[in-house]
């Protein structure tokens, strides 16, 4: 578990529109990397190329290489379904399966992967919910629907669902943007714990959040509306927020953008 991601020369398209251009970067295992940048610069698009979710969008197309340790995710023999089982994803809006109970939500990915004994399943669900700091709040109502939880709880349920299958990498696209400050803090703490075991990439619009949770920060930008987004720089978070090497990064971070 926890593998290195090595992206080289990656571009992604929506039909004929090029959304991101020639991105290369390395993400170390057991670290948190934050993606920041203005709206529309391709952060979500890039994130979704890392677990081959980009291509489920009609017209979605990718060029370039994404190495997970020494396997190219875009190799000709690679099954995108298998990729998504090793690279988990948490979305901006909490999306538990509305018809499933809390237990079944967490077990959903496991049941896709194979058959487990009831006791094994119980153990993994409990461990995952504890891992997502949700266990104490839901242990008495595991058979109630997941959609009955609060937004913050639902998001932690989605995290539990994602980590239950022990992915190599966990991708999070603005996981806190629909949550209140307290739930946000809960999830930030959780990210700090999860990075012991997973490689984490998180998209955020919240500078403080990026500064708080991440080890490395990548700044993306686009030259103009309609132009593809590019990676401007990737560096230690401390460095990006104190002394970035590119002027555009400093402008963006200090709010002098545009």
């Amino acid at each position, binding site marked *: 578990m926890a593998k290195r991601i090595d992206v080289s020369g990656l571009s992604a398209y929506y039909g004929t529109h090029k959304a991101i251009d020639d991105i290369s970067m390395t993400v170390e295992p057991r670290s948190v990397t934050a993606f920041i940048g203005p709206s529309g610069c391709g952060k979500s698009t890039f994130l979704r190329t890392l*677990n081959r*979710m980009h291509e*489920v969008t*009609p017209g979605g197309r990718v060029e370039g290489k994404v190495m997970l340790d020494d396997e190219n995710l875009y190799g000709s023999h690679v099954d995108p*379904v*298998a*990729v*998504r*089982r*090793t690279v*988990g*994803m948490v*979305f901006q*809006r909490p*999306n*538990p*399966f*509305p*018809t*499933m109970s809390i237990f079944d939500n967490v077990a*959903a*990915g496991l049941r*896709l*992967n194979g058959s487990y004994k009831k006791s094994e399943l119980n153990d993994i669900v409990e461990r995952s919910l504890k891992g997502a700091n949700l266990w104490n709040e839901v242990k008495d109502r595991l058979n109630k*629907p997941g*959609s*009955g939880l609060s937004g913050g709880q639902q998001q932690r349920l*989605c995290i539990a*669902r*994602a980590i239950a*299958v022990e992915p190599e990498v966990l991708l999070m696209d603005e996981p806190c943007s629909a949550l209140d400050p307290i739930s946000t803090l809960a999830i930030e703490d959780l990210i700090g714990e999860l990075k012991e075991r997973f490689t984490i990439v998180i998209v955020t619009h919240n500078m403080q959040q990026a500064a708080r949770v991440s080890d490395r920060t990548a700044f993306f930008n686009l030259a103009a509306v309609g132009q593809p987004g590019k990676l401007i720089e990737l560096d230690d978070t401390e460095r990006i927020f104190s002394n970035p090497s590119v002027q555009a990064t400093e402008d963006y971070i200090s709010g002098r953008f545009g």
Partner: protein
Amino acid sequence: MATTTPDLPRSRRPKGAARPGDRIFSGLSRGSGITLLVIMAAIAVFLTYRAVLAISQDSTNFFTTFEWNPAGNPPVFGIAVLAFGTVVSSIVAMVIAVPIAIGIALFISHYAPRKLAKPLAYVVDLLAAVPSIIYGLWGAIFLVPYLDGLNQWLDTYLGWTYIFDKSSDGVARNLFTVGILLAIMILPIITNVTREVFLQVPKMHEEAALALGATRWEVIRMSVLPFGRSGIISASMLGLGRALGETMAVAVVLSPSFLISGHLLDPGGGTFAQNIAAKFNEADEFGRDALIASGLVLFAITLLVNGAARWIIGRRKEYSGAAA
């Protein structure tokens, strides 16, 4: 011109004073609402009254009698055969149509490339517009002789199931053929409604499954079908309503008789709507009342089915996609 005092602009009129247009419109809509209710109540009272008149003259039990002879002396008529035929042919239709309709709807909404999905959806729409008498004629002329062979085959290989055991000879003018024809007739409406529901599944539910490493079929099982569940039930009920009440197609295909047979392939049987269509013209006033009584039973069955569907949909409301 300049001397006339201009009206206040519309937006600055005081709130309390209704504009004449509003008053007229609200009066009209309320009036038509009340008229509709009155007409419906009048119809219900009239039908019930005539039905009760007929049933009270029936010399046998209206619900268990295998005969329809209101002109006899004493009058003998009952709906047992009609209820059986209606329910059985509708069950056959549902068993065949619902899975196929779901399959077509899934294909159009989730599998077919867009170039194919559009024309396919259009063809299904067209099928829904074909008048039922056309289906009936097609059934009688094409389907019946064609199904003779199928019936022989079913009898030979599935005869042990009892329901496919053919105990008497004769062409395929039986409840099974009626069921197949009804299935074809209700297929488009079920397909259309379920397709619409499947297309409305929020992308985030499907992506939730995809991101866990679900295959296309697993996405359908985890996200699409659960979300579409109540829509599938509603669509099926629409189809069932049509199957229960279908008249012309059944009347053309079935060779009616007042017998109940558990062997689906035996010719004969009847349905409420078919019986009414077949008997109404030659019936005297009392005979018509008797037919009205049978029609009321059909109505009651339809209401029951709808109520059951609503209950099923409502039972697991907290698990429905609506809350998320």
